[in-house]
């Protein structure tokens, strides 16, 4: 019973991410979301499967491509959409746009677009948790390209040295922008690389939300019990262009055939099929779910578009936190 509803919950998370990002894509050309957006359409299973294994108070960090992680961890939807619209009601009041999200209520500390930068920061948050004994586990999402940055190794080394409660999630979508893996890395195995750092590491199917969840659940349990860090890599594929709302298989860096083969494996459709086949979900419920999500999403977009821009007077604040005040998560 719990299992069934958990699986349905994960499906709904994926569906919600897909629908939110499709709405962003649909409206992006209106030029009212005036910031770069990096969509995770096609990659939703990883966000949904991974985040289901964490609790609300656990910490999450991510990159430029983070809407899915933010939503899966429970981040506030209106706050996300308003942020992309640059409004005062955005989760960071229009400061950061799509690439700098946070929602402290659910442990989302930061997403940042400098490739690799959140890896050591996430490691440090896990280190803080260890020092404080607060029982939190940290998750950090990043792409295949990110494993080329020196801080990737530096972070793994320290996480292993200190046996930190952290789970590194690598979403290998085969590309860094338009550059395929083979012009950036030798035919090496990133799982072996993480393992060589002394970290428990595994490779998973990025289209199978249940497998992702159970691999992550193990990693989280180990971390929570002092068993140290894990590294999980999931094979996946980004359907849309690197940055922006469109498809771009025509521009020449990847083939339509490659795209179509991956689209066949659509993690969302796959789970939907499974749920319908097993009877855990019926067509009517599905359309109810979709309708209510559609409602929620439209409300968020409407609210964002109606929300005020930040007032002039607030835009030059917060460079420093007042000395008396220090907002820390703990």
């Amino acid at each position, binding site marked *: 019973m719990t299992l069934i509803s958990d699986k349905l919950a994960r499906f709904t998370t994926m569906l919600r991410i897909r629908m939110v990002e499709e709405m962003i894509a649909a409206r992006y050309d209106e030029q009212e979301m*005036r*910031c*770069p957006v990096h969509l995770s359409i096609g990659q939703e299973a990883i966000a949904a499967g991974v985040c289901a294994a964490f609790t609300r108070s656990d910490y999450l960090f991510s990159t430029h491509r983070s809407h899915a992680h933010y939503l899966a961890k429970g981040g506030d939807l209106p706050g996300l959409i308003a942020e992309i619209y*640059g*409004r005062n009601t*955005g989760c960071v*009041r*229009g*400061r*950061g*746009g*799509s*690439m*700098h999200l946070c929602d402290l209520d659910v442990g989302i500390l930061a997403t*940042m*677009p*400098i*490739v*690799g930068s959140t890896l050591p920061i996430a490691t440090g948050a896990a280190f803080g948790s260890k020092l404080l004994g607060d029982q939190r586990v940290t998750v950090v999402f990043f792409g295949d*390209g*990110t494993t*080329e*940055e*020196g801080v990737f190794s530096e972070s793994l080394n320290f996480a292993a040295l200190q046996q930190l409660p952290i789970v590194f999630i690598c979403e290998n979508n085969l590309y*860094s*922008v*338009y*550059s395929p893996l083979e*012009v*950036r*890395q030798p035919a090496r195995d990133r799982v072996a690389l993480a393992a060589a750092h002394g970290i428990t590491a595994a490779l998973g199917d990025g289209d199978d939300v249940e497998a992702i969840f159970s691999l992550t659940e193990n990693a989280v349990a180990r971390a929570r019990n002092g068993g140290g860090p894990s590294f999980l890599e999931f094979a996946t594929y980004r359907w849309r262009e690197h940055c922006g709302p469109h498809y771009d298989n025509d*521009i*020449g*860096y990847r083939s339509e055939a490659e795209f179509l083969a991956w689209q066949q494996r659509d993690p969302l459709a796959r789970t939907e099929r499974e749920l319908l086949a097993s009877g855990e979900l019926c067509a009517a419920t599905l359309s109810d779910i979709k309708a209510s999500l559609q409602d929620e999403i439209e409300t968020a977009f409407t609210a964002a578009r109606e929300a005020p*821009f*930040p007032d*002039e007077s607030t*835009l*030059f604040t917060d*460079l420093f936190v007042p000395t008396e005040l220090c907002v820390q998560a703990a």
Partner: protein
Amino acid sequence: MRTLLYTEAIREALDLAMAADQRVYVMGLGVPDPKAIFGTTAGLQAKYGPQRVFDMPVAENGMTGVAIGSALAGMRPVMVHQRVDFALLALDQIANSAAKWSFLFAGKQSVPLVIRLLIGRGWGQGPQHSQSLQATFAHFPGLKVVMPTSPYDAKGMLLAAIADPNPVVFLEHRWLHSTFGHVPPEHYHAPLSQALVSRPGSDITLVASSLAHIEALQAANILAQHNISAEVLDLRSIQPLDRETIHASLKKTKRLLVVDHGWKSFGVAGEIIASMSEIAFTDLISAPQRVTAPDHYPATTPAHANLYYPGVAEIVNAALHMFKRTPMSESDMQLTIPLHRDVPDKNFRGPF
């Protein structure tokens, strides 16, 4: 007169440099991809092959070291980062290795390396994708730092930078990429060390570089309507700083206003004011001033762009203030000054 886009000028410089010298290669994230660094590397891989035009791992510090080492071994690398912000990851190799190499090894070796760094702005680039870090690089002895404004200089200075045996940081503002101007087809060098008097004048000297220089020229037009004759200097090179040309202008105009899109404090504008206050104090008849970005970051929201970035209006008003004139009225400004927003004006095909 042949005109090219700024991006085409850059591309032509790379093409000519690679054709002329087998040692030249171009590397950077996205260099051979379909977008070709906003077109500046388009077609080069097809022409010169993947050994000389190639992508790289996402590893800025290491790959800068690789470029340096290959330069020592006899190559002439041109490295490019889509945003200057990413170069902070490589500052150890740029400032601790490349900048110090020739001095440390007594001139027996040098590092002929060009690093193209693109400055972003607007459309939600935010604090980590829109920094103007010219002062950061210029402070380290041993680096040449240039910021060409015109397509002509972009081509000529890039060719000169590639031919130079020293490390050169080559800063390109993204908003200049879509400007165009006269660019002769042949191989030529523009100097890496000289400011240019881009508009002669007699009442005040405006010193600026890159996008800010275009705004300074627009400001000079408006100042002319106020009967103020502004001499405009296109700095072109930040390090070395052409103090002579600035001083010569001040002897005539006796007033200095510096425009720079970097942060105000500890920046390029400050250095120019300081140098001139030291050496041209008696030439000046009023306090030198600067118009810069504030000591703050721009939010991604478009609501911030107009407030954060200094523009033509701020330059005009700063100049008027130096003549004790009243600032332009809001309505005057609306009429004469293109409102700069978070993207360059669609009609803006520059350079003027």
